[in-house]
C-alpha cells in the first residue's frame, strides 16, 4: 500500500507491504528498518528507525494528524492513492480566491474597511483579539474589498474567511 504523506508542506512517499507476516516499510523508495509499538491506545508510540529511537505521540484522525517528535509538532496529512487522486481532482476544480483568512480563533473587535474600499498591500483591515492580545490583520495584496464576511464583535474560528479582496486588473 502506497501513501502520500505531507509533513508541514512537503510530500513524501511511504510504502507498506506485508510479506510473510512481517511489515516492511519504504520511505522515498528506500527500505527502512522500522520498529513500531503503540504504548497505549491514545497515541503514544515507540518508533525505531534502524536503531534510532523516537518517542512519538500522534493526535488526530487517519488523514490529518499532529505528530510530536522531541517537542516539535508536525502537521501531517496522509493520503492513499485513491484519496490523492480524488483530492487532486478537487484542487484542480477550485479557483484561486483572494480571501483573507483568520490564522487563529478570536473575536473581531474592530472592522477598519467596508465593501468597495480600495486597499493597499499591508493596510490594516481589522483587529482580531485572541488570548487578550490585539492583532492587526493586514492586506497581503492591493485591491478592492469585494466581501466582508464578518461583523464587529463576531467570534471566528481558525481558518475562517474574513474579507475577500479582488486583485486590481492588470494595468
Amino acid at each position: 500500500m502506497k501513501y502520500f504523506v505531507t509533513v508541514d508542506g512537503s510530500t513524501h512517499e511511504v510504502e507498506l507491504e506485508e510479506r510473510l507476516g512481517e511489515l516492511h516499510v519504504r520511505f522515498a523508495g528506500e527500505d527502512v528498518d522500522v520498529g513500531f509499538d503503540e504504548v497505549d491506545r491514545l497515541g503514544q508510540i515507540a518508533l525505531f528507525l534502524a536503531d534510532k529511537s523516537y518517542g512519538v505521540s500522534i493526535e488526530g484522525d487517519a488523514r490529518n494528524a499532529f505528530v510530536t517528535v522531541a517537542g516539535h509538532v508536525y502537521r501531517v496529512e496522509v493520503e492513499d492513492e485513491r484519496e490523492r487522486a480524488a483530492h487532486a481532482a478537487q484542487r484542480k476544480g477550485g479557483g484561486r480566491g483572494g480571501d483573507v483568512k483568520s490564522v487563529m480563533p478570536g473575536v473581531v473587535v474592530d472592522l477598519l474597511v467596508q465593501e468597495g474600499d480600495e486597499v493597499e498591500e499591508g493596510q490594516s483591515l481589522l483587529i482580531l483579539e485572541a488570548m487578550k492580545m490585539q492583532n492587526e490583520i493586514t492586506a497581503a495584496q492591493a485591491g478592492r474589498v469585494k466581501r466582508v464576511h464578518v461583523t464587529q464583535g463576531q467570534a471566528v474560528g481558525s481558518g475562517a474567511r474574513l474579507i475577500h479582496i479582488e486583485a486590481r486588473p492588470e494595468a
Partner: protein
Amino acid sequence: MAMFQRILIANRGEIAVRILRTAREMGIESVAVYSDFDRRALHARLADRAVALGGALPSESYLDMKKILAAAKRTGAEAIHPGYGFLAENAAFARAVEDAGLAWVGPPPAAIETMGDKITSRRSMQAADVPVVPGIVDPIENAAAAEVEAAKVGYPIALKAAAGGGGKGIRIVRSKKEMEGAFRTASGEAKSAFGDGRIYLERYLDRPRHIEIQVMFDRHGNGVHFGERECSVQRRHQKLIEESPSPVVDEALRAAMGRVALEAARAVGYVGAGTVEFLYTAASGKPEFFFLEMNTRLQVEHPVTEMVTGIDLVREQLRVAAGEELGYGQDDIRFHGHAIEVRVNAEDPTNGFLPSTGTIQNLRWPGGPWVRVDSGVYRGMEVGLNYDPMLAKLICWAPDRMGAIERMRRTLAELNIGGVRTGTPAALAVLESEAFRSGDFDTHLLESMDVGSVRGDEVQAAAIAAVLHRWSSAQRRALAHRGDRAGWLERGRAELGGQRERSAGEVGR
C-alpha cells in the same frame, strides 16, 4: 500575628498550583476557586478546598471580586493570595480584601496604585533619584500628539499603556508612518486588558536587555533583594526564556542594581515580593540601566531566583503577610549556580506565535536531575482562548550557565504535549543559537531568529509514524469487528458450558 490556618488563592493554572504547594508544605490549608470552564482543573483538584465561582469568562469568575470575597468568607480563609494577572495588581481589590478583615498577600494598595500607573511611577522614581528611560511622563491624547512628542524624543519610540503589564498595550514605532496604527492597537489593547486606554511614550533603547531585580520587604521596614533575572528573550514583548544570573551582571553591577531596586521599592512603602524591571544597555560603551516599571506581585519567572538562592518566595510572601520579620539580611543571601526557565505557551512558533487551541491528549513531562516542572496542565485538558496561553514552566538548574543550557535542551527534548502546538521549538532554537550561548544578545534576539526550521530525520519519523498509526488503527478496527463476532460466539459457548456443568453437578448429588 500567628501563621494562617487557611488561605484562598484567587487564581488558576500553574500559579495557583504553585502557591497551594507551598501552603501545604507550611501546614496551611488552601482554598481554590474555579470557573465553570475549570471545573476539572488541576488547581481545584489539588487544593484542600475548592469553591465554584461559575461563569466561563474571567469577568464572571477570577475577576469577580464579590464572588471571591464571598468564597473566602464561606470557607473561613484568613488571607488571599492573588498570584499574578487577574486581580494581582488591582488596588481596589487589595483594599476590599483588607476591608473584609482578611490579609492581602501583596503590597499596600497605595504602592500598587503608584507603581501600577506607569506615569505616576515614573514621576515618583524621578523624585527618588532612580534613573528612568528618557521620554514623556504625561499621557498622550492621540496619534497626532504622539507624533509631535516622538519627534522631540527621537525614533525609535516605545508606546506603552499607562496601566500596562505583561507586555500588553506596548508597541514599538520606528518611524512616523507607523504611529497611527500602533497608537490605535496599543490603546485598544490597553482599554481591553486594563480598562484604561491611556498611553505614554519613551525612547526605545538600542540593543536593550531586560534585567529585573527581585525584592522582598517585611512589614517592619526590612528589605532585601535576591539578585537579578535576565529576561531579554521575548517576542511580542512577552518573555519566553528567563535566567539567573544574567550573563552581563557581575557582583558590582548586581549590588548597584539591587541598591536602586530597594530604593525604588522603599519610595512607595513597599511590603512583600516585588520586581523592579530595568532596561540595560552597554551601547554607549559602559553599562547603564534605567527603571522601566515595578511589578507589585510575584512574577511568572520567580522560580529561577528560587533555584539560585534556595529560598521559596511564596513562603516568604506568606510569612510577611502574616506579619513575620524576614529574619535575615542582604549578606545572608547566597547565590549558587545558574537557573533557566522556559515558558511553555500554547502557540505556534512557525506561525508568528499565534495562539494554538485544542485538547491535550498526550502528556509526557521531562524529569530527572535539577528539572523543575511548574504546571497546571493535565491530560484531557481543553486549551481555549479564555485564558492566558501559558501552560507550564520548565526550570533547570546547573552549576554553570552552559550546564543549565544543555540541561534545558535535554529537558525540552523530553517534553511531549500532544494536542496543541507550543512555543518550545522556538526556545530550543534560542538555546542552540550562538548569540544566546555567548551571552551577547538583546531583546530583539528572538524576533530576529528563524524558528520554523524542521529536522530531516524527524520529518521522516513523523511521516512513518502517521502512516503506521493509520494502518494499525485500521487493523485494530478490522480485528474488533471480527472480535465482536468471535466474542459473541465465545460467550454463547461459555453459557452453554456453564449450564452443562451445573447439570452434571445435579446428577452427581
